[in-house]
C-alpha cells in the first residue's frame, strides 16, 4: 500500500483503526520527498527530525489509548510565512533568510494541539507577493502536473507539495487568490475561509485586511479537515471572529435546490480568449443544473473595479506591513552603512526582490500626502460598493460560481515581466477577499492536459454551503 497516495481522511481512518501507524505515514511521505523534491522544490525547509519525533509521540498516544486530535498523524506543509518556533521561517526572502522565530503562529499551536505533524515549510512568492512562486529567493517551485509550468502562487509550494503527495494537507495564505489559484493550477482543492475564520496571529501579513490562512487538500474532505483543525476564535488576533470554527456533515450534501448565481460581469469581461476554459466551465454549470441546482445570472456592477481597488488597498497595506523589516531587530542588515538612512535603505534594497519593492512603492505612493484621498480612501469606498453588491446577491443565492483563474497554468518566465497582465489574472479571486467572503477552488476538468479549477464563493461564515456544494459536485464527477 502506498500510504502517501491516500487522502488525508483515509490515512486518519486507517490510523484510528490501527491499520497503519503515524510513523509509517510520515515515512511514506518522506520517501516521496526524497524522490520528487529535487524536481518540484516545494519546500524551503524540511524538518525531518522534529516531524519524526512528533509522529512517535502520536503513536505513543495511540498505544496509551488516548483521544486524538482531528489532524492526528497527518504530515502537514506550512507556507513559509507562518511562524514556527525555533524553525526557520523565511517568507521566501533574503530579508528573513536566517530568521528563527521565538514563537508559534496560532495555527501552528492549533496543529500541535490536534496532533498534526509539521513536516516542513513550503515555498512561496516573496512575502506572498505574486501568482507563480517565481519571486521566491529560494528558486521556482514546479507544477507536479507538468514541470514546465508554474504551480501558481503565492502559495505554490503548499499546493505543489499536496499535489505531489509530499504532504497530506497544507496551509497557505490567501490575500487575493494565493490559495485558490495554485489549487486550481495544481489540480487540488483550496479553501479561502471567511475573513476572521482562521487566526492571523503569527502569519507574516501581506495585506492585513485581506489576508486569510487557507487550506489545501487532495479532495474537499481533506481541505475541510485542515480547516477544522486550525479554525477557532483567537484572543491574540483582534480580527478573529467569535463565529469562527466549522463543524458540519458532508455525507448528506447535494446540489438539489442550491441557488447559484453567475455574475454577468464575468461573462462580459472575457478576460481571456481561451474558449476551451470557458467550455469546461459551461459544462460544469450544465452539470449543476442537471443535478437540480437553480442557476441565475446576476449583476455585481462594481466587480469591474475590483482589481484596481484590490491593488491600491493591498499595496498600501503591504507598504506599512513590510516597514518592520528594517534590519535592526532581526532580518538582513547591510554591512556598509554610515548613516541611519543608509542602514535602512541599503538593508531593504539589498534584501527585497523586485516585486516586493514595486508593491511597497505603489503602496507608499497610494498613502502619501496628496494622493491618499484619491487612492487609498477612494479604494476603501469602492470596497464598500463591492461588498454591497455581494451582500445583495447573497440575499437570495446560496453560492456564486465562477472560474478560479481565467488562464491555464503558464510557462515559467512568461508573464512575470508584465505586472499588469499578471494582476489581471486575479480577476475572479480578488473580489472575494475584498468582501471578506469564503471561497473554494476545486478541479472541474482539464484543458491541454492542464487542470482547470472552479471557484465556489459563499457569504461570510457560510463555509458549510461552499464546502458541501463542492463535496456534492465532487461525488457526482467521481
Amino acid at each position, binding site marked *: 500500500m502506498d500510504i502517501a497516495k491516500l487522502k488525508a481522511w483515509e490515512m486518519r481512518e486507517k490510523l484510528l483503526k490501527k491499520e497503519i501507524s503515524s510513523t509509517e505515514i510520515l515515512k511514506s511521505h518522506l520517501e516521496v520527498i526524497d524522490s520528487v523534491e529535487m524536481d518540484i522544490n516545494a519546500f524551503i525547509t524540511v524538518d525531518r527530525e522534529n516531524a519524526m519525533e512528533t509522529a512517535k509521540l502520536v503513536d505513543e498516544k495511540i498505544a496509551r489509548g488516548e483521544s486524538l486530535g482531528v489532524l492526528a498523524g497527518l504530515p502537514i506543509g506550512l507556507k513559509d510565512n507562518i511562524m514556527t518556533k525555533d524553525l526557520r521561517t523565511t517568507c521566501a526572502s533574503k530579508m528573513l533568510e536566517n530568521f528563527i522565530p521565538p514563537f508559534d503562529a496560532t495555527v501552528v499551536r492549533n496543529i500541535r494541539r490536534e496532533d498534526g505533524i509539521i513536516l516542513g515549510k513550503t515555498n512561496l512568492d516573496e512575502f506572498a507577493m505574486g501568482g507563480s512562486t517565481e519571486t521566491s529567493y529560494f528558486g521556482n517551485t514546479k507544477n507536479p502536473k507538468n514541470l514546465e509550468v508554474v504551480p501558481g502562487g503565492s502559495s505554490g509550494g503548499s499546493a505543489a507539495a499536496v499535489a505531489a503527495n509530499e504532504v497530506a494537507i497544507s496551509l497557505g495564505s490567501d490575500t487575493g487568490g494565493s490559495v485558490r489559484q495554485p489549487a486550481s493550477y495544481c489540480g487540488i482543492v483550496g479553501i479561502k475561509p471567511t475573513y476572521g475564520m482562521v487566526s492571523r496571529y503569527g502569519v507574516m501579513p501581506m495585506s492585513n485586511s485581506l489576508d486569510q490562512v487557507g487550506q489545501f487538500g487532495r479532495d474537499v474532505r481533506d481541505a475541510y479537515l485542515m480547516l477544522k483543525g486550525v479554525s477557532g476564535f483567537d484572543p491574540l488576533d483582534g480580527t478573529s471572529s467569535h463565529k469562527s470554527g466549522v463543524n458540519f456533515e458532508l455525507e448528506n450534501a447535494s446540489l438539489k435546490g442550491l441557488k447559484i448565481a453567475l455574475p454577468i460581469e464575468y461573462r462580459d469581461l472575457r478576460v481571456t480568449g481561451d474558449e476551451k476554459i470557458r467550455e469546461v466551465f459551461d459544462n460544469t454549470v450544465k452539470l449543476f443544473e442537471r443535478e437540480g441546482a437553480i442557476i441565475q445570472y446576476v449583476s455585481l456592477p462594481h466587480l469591474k473595479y475590483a482589481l484596481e481597488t484590490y491593488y491600491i488597498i493591498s499595496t498600501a497595506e503591504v507598504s506599512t506591513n513590510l516597514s518592520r523589516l528594517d534590519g535592526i531587530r532581526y532580518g538582513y542588515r547591510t554591512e556598509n552603512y554610515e548613516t541611519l538612512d543608509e542602514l535602512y535603505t541599503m538593508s531593504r534594497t539589498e534584501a527585497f526582490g523586485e516585486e516586493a519593492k514595486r508593491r511597497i512603492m505603489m503602496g507608499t505612493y497610494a498613502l502619501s500626502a496628496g494622493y491618499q484621498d484619491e487612492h487609498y480612501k477612494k479604494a476603501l469606498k469602492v470596497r*464598500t460598493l463591492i461588498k454591497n453588491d455581494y451582500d445583495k446577491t447573497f440575499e437570495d443565492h446560496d453560492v456564486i460560481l465562477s472560474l478560479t483563474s481565467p488562464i491555464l497554468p503558464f510557462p515559467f518566465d512568461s508573464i512575470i515581466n508584465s505586472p499588469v497582465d499578471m494582476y489581471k489574472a486575479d480577476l475572479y479571486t480578488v473580489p472575494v477577499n475584498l468582501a471578506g467572503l469564503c471561497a473554494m477552488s476545486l478541479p472541474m476538468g482539464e484543458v491541454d492536459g492542464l487542470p482547470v479549477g472552479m471557484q465556489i464563493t459563499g457569504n461570510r461564515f457560510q463555509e458549510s454551503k461552499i464546502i458541501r456544494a463542492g463535496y456534492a459536485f465532487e461525488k457526482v464527477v467521481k
Partner: protein
Amino acid sequence: MITKDEVNHIASIAKLKIKDDEISLFTEKFDQVMSFVQKIKEVDTENVEPTYKINDEDGFLKENGESQTLTREEVLRNTVDTQYGYFKILKVVE
C-alpha cells in the same frame, strides 16, 4: 505620467533605492501599474462610507490575557549585533 524624480522621492520615503541603471525600466513599469489603477476614479463614491473592517463584529479588548514575554536570548537571537543585552547599531548621524 510618473517621473523618475517622483519615483526617487517615493523610494526615499519607503527607504528603498532604485539603482540608476534600473530607474528607467522601473519607472515605466511603475507608471503602467499606477495608470492601471486610475480607473477607480470613475466610480461615484459620494455618500459612500469607507470599509475598514469587512465583517460586522466590533473589535474586542484584552483583559487578563496570557503573557507571551520572551527570554532575552529569544529577543536578541535574530539580530546582527548586541551588547550588554541591548540591540546594537553603529551610532547614526541625525
